[in-house]
């Protein structure tokens, strides 16, 4: 009985996810069935998921030339492509996270530095990664580096500003206490501000994970010549809606898994915001 319940509790989230997806898919299929959704533009899942092997041949794990010729074709090549894209996302994300955290801390730590850089960062923040492409190509040439750079750019400014806002919202009493205990400025940042902002910073990171996934699709178009972004681009160029939606599905699933992984890490690393602050109702 309790065993049963334990298992049920384990699989419940999975069941809900399946139910959730089913509804979404159901509505889509319905729209197609009623003729509202043109299958040329919005093919429903049963169409774009049919004939997978036919589609898989566009996935070339080496990524030299997605699309042309059929070197790909197996599930492994699909995983290979996803892996490459994930790698770019992850690298850009980690770099962006570290750099923005460091910048954010430095801006508040070194007053003058902060006053000099903050207006610049606020102005650079709204500039689209698309507009950075020439800079990326100029500085990094083609291949992985510009793609990673674009992912980094896309999250760096926003994360820096988020870090600043988190630092500014650290409860006054935490800092006062630290000063009473004789913390130097450096120690306050190291021992109080950093742990105090870490939980929310993780949430910000999770939000930016999605941003990074969004940008990688654009970035991969810039001479990387592989990855899910490049396949999407090719699919759009050749008006292959099935492939567009298959790729979107893969992106969605991968992004979802990334998010779940990050959630897990968050729960392990930030144990102190576990049971004490469940909020909600």
């Amino acid at each position, binding site marked *: 009985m309790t065993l049963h319940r334990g298992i049920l509790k384990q699989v419940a989230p999975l069941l809900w996810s399946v139910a959730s997806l089913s509804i979404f898919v159901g509505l889509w299929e319905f729209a197609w069935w009623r003729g509202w959704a043109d299958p040329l533009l919005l093919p429903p899942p049963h169409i774009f998921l049919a004939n997978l092997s036919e589609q898989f041949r566009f996935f070339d794990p080496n990524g030299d030339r997605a699309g042309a010729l059929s070197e790909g074709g197996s599930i492994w090549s699909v995983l290979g492509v996803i892996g490459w894209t994930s790698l770019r996302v992850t690298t850009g994300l980690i770099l962006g996270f570290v750099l923005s955290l460091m910048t954010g801390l430095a801006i508040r730590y070194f007053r003058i530095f902060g006053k000099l850089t903050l207006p610049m960062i606020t102005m650079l923040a709204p500039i689209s990664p698309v507009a950075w492409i020439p800079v990326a190509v100029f500085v990094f040439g083609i291949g992985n580096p510009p793609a990673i750079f674009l992912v980094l750019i896309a999250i760096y400014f926003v994360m820096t500003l988020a870090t600043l806002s988190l630092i500014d919202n650290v409860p006054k009493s935490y800092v006062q206490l630290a000063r*009473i205990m*004789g913390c130097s400025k450096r120690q306050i940042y190291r*021992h109080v501000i950093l*742990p*105090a902002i*870490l939980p929310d910073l993780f949430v910000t990171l999770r939000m930016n994970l999605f941003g990074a996934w969004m940008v990688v699709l654009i970035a991969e178009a810039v001479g990387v010549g592989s990855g899910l972004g490049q396949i999407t681009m090719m699919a759009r160029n050749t008006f292959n809606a099935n492939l567009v939606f298959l790729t979107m599905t893969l992106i969605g699933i991968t992004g979802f898994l990334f998010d779940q992984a990050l959630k897990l890490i968050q729960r392990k690393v930030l144990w*102190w915001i576990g049971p*004490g602050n469940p909020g909600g109702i």
Partner: protein
Amino acid sequence: MLGLSIKDVSKIWNPGGPDPVPAVSNLTLDVAPAEFVVLLGPSGCGKSSLLYIVAGLEQPTSGTVTFDGLPITEPSPERSLIFQEASLYPWLTVKDNVTFGLKINHTAPAKREAAAQKLLKLVGLGNAGNKRPHELSGGMRQRAALARALAMRPKVMLMDEPFAALDIQTRARMQGHLLDIWESSKASILLVTHSIDEALALADRIVVFTSRPGRIKAEITLDLPRPRDLRSPEMVDYARRCEALLAEEVERAFKEQELA
């Protein structure tokens, strides 16, 4: 001049704003080295504000505060403050909270561990060292904050109702420990309390505040050995005097606000 010297200090909150609040007014008070001064006063009269200023967390609107002759401009571990509302860092265990100050001044881990063990037992949290702050009861949190302050061995201890959340027996124990530590360290202590008994048990000198803005209404010097018998006629007499002084001020404060 050695010791703490508060000269003509005033503190106005929101000074430029639409509703400035004078919390402390022209207050002058000296605390000699190794002196134990207890502040008594009606709720909201400015006691915490004064401690914040002495700690260096707030600047007085006017007047000066010096320690050993040097003006106080910022906090220092020499002058520890126990906040009225015990605040522990949620990301540290109770033990790490208690030894936070030691970690900051680079005490070796082994020494920290030993200090933590000793202090936690002292305040009755020997079993709670690995707990997280949110798992403690109100009184336990306050004791943890006390242990943290004691770990620092400061020259001045500023304590804002450090025992308010403790039952009378635990409180008596803590008072005993505090006196022991005070006597061995010869620190100056400035302690805020609402318990007249506590004031009488601990103080070299009791300073009674007026209602807001806080000024000194009376000072009572208790040149008596400790432990003191609070039921002795002399002590009961002191207690009556304190009560009467406070009663006047509370009366006045309530009158004022009812008229407003």
